[in-house]
């Protein structure tokens, strides 16, 4: 990959349909949920779909959603929790349903995000499971976000590189067992960044509203840009960056700030 040019980077947020973003000023007052995606797409070219983690993705729901976005708008879809955090059902059936449900999105799919829980450690059974999962999604662009430090090893990165699977770079509170912030590019076609905020107390609270309650300052984002984003941009064809600190509309505010910095 060329090292002397910076690839384009698309900035967006994790989810877009938050009623508190109306109170927070990102959406105009009285905006209703069906109008949100269209308004969101005026500010950002990409969004991460959060709701696909909560429920199995369904083709009819996806079809209804994408008509509200421009044709060149991109989506990153989280893998459903029944395949990552709550593996109680037959995963082969679940993955088949997921693939089927995602079909209408194929042309606008930036990546499938496999977000693994902190309890998913580097063990033989988990490695086998992840390998099966990646095999069954081999024809999709896939990004993997580890939450446990045990996966931070060269053999893992080499395997991802061989499979052309993106390793997600995360900005999160610095905590002992949490996967660190690494600007390693395992897929030269795409890098994937997620900003979770740096609220250490909130992260440990178990309350989502506290966990993602953080606003990055311009200085923090400028520093991040210099330290991580630039190196990432020299190693890939394209990059996507999402802000997950959705509380009080801090995510779209920070995403706009980063757009300015990157520009």
């Amino acid at each position, binding site marked *: 990959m060329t090292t002397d040019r910076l690839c384009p980077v698309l900035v967006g947020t994790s*989810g877009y349909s938050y*009623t508190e973003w109306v109170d927070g000023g990102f959406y105009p007052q009285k905006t209703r949920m069906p109008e949100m995606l269209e308004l969101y797409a005026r500010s950002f070219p990409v969004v991460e779909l959060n709701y696909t983690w909560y429920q199995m993705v369904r083709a009819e729901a996806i079809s209804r959603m994408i008509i509200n976005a421009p044709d060149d708008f991109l989506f990153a879809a989280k893998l459903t929790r029944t395949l990552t955090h709550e593996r109680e059902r037959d995963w082969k059936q679940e993955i088949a349903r997921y693939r089927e449900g995602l079909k209408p999105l194929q042309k606008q799919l930036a990546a499938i995000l496999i977000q693994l829980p902190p309890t998913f450690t580097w063990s033989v059974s988990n490695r086998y499971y992840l390998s099966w999962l990646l095999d069954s999604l081999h024809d999709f662009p896939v990004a993997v976000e580890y939450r446990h430090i045990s996966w931070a090893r060269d053999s893992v990165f080499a395997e991802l590189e061989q499979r052309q699977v993106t390793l997600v770079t995360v900005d999160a509170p610095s905590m002992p067992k949490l996967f660190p912030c690494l600007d390693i590019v395992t897929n030269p076609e795409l890098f994937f960044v997620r900003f979770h905020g740096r609220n250490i107390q909130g992260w440990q609270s178990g309350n989502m*509203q506290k966990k993602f309650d953080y606003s990055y300052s311009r200085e923090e984002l400028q520093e991040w840009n210099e330290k991580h984003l630039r190196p990432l941009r020299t190693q890939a064809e394209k990059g996507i960056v999402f802000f997950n600190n959705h509380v009080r509309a801090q995510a779209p505010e920070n995403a706009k700030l980063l757009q300015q910095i990157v520009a």
Partner: protein
Amino acid sequence: MVDRHIIHLNITDFAVAVERICDPTLKKSPLIVAPEHTPRGLVYDMSEEAYQDGVRKGMGLAMARRCCRRAHVVSPRISLYRKAMKTLVKQVNYYTPLVEQGEEDGHLFMDVTGTHRLFGPPPDIAWKLRKQMKKETGLDPVWSLAATKLVAKVASRVVRPYGEYIVGVGEEHAFLAPLPLTLLPGLKPVEMKIMAEFNLRSIGDLARLSREQLQVPFQKRSSYLYEASRGRDVTPVLSGEDVSPSCMQEHAFAEDTQDRKEINYTLMTLVHDMGRSLRQKKMLSKRLVLVLSYSDGRSVSRQALQKNGTDDDFMLRTLALTALERAWKRRIRIRSLVLVCDRFVPRSPQQTLFVVDSARKIQQRKIMAAMDSIYDRFGEAGIRLGGE
């Protein structure tokens, strides 16, 4: 207009789920919950496997056993299901006071509109609740999220027995359109029959008809059908305090009976318990409803009204006997009696200014007060109102 966020939690086959938690060995075979030792007991609930074999709620137990010979049968324990529901409501109340529950059936609606600042996005609340219920009670609910109760209920029906469904605001019509009419709540068998005659198969078929077109075959129900087929439902989630209060007393006969003496005696017992309960609440009831269930599973309800309200056993007895006369028209044995009093007004502590109670009335009131104190001290066997 504020978009509402209503979560519907539904524990499929609630009685079965509770029984299986109490006795995990019941998971090994299909399960039917029905009164075991009464002839022609009706099925109260059944597991999915029994349902697949053809067992249905309200079916005679003998027939149910023939449909599913490998099924295990246990008697219903209503108080246990009530207790389980209370536990669930307690968990749900942490997130919102607006919780509407069904009658020991594992259905809960909760309105979480405006709670995002405290608890985050509604899907996260639903997911957390499901996880919490599973961990703490072992019950695994289906959950759905929608802008109306009606759509949330349909969404739960779509995914049950396992799963979840989020219907986005504004997607109600598109979500409902392809679904079969059988999933739309509140349709009566006679309406289903008319719809079949008109070749209406899906909810979308129904939604294509105008109000005027629906008016012809469905008359008063046309308005409901018009709105429901479009996913429109403005009914609020009613918490316990909002639901119209009522008092209920019930009795199931050990053996189905046609013996008028036995039925009258039982009714008097229920009346006395009801009167006592009203007096404790310091409430007068303006309506008494009697529900008779016959041996063949059919039931009928009739009411009797008292304009000013009453908590008097003697008056309640008159109302109950009137309702019984109105309800008991078939020559079939009776399985159970349910007495409901509602339309409450508070009993005034003041004496009436001009209308003086008759001596007999005063005497009756004294008798009841004495009976209540004997009852409190010696229990229900202590004293009873005599029959004719």
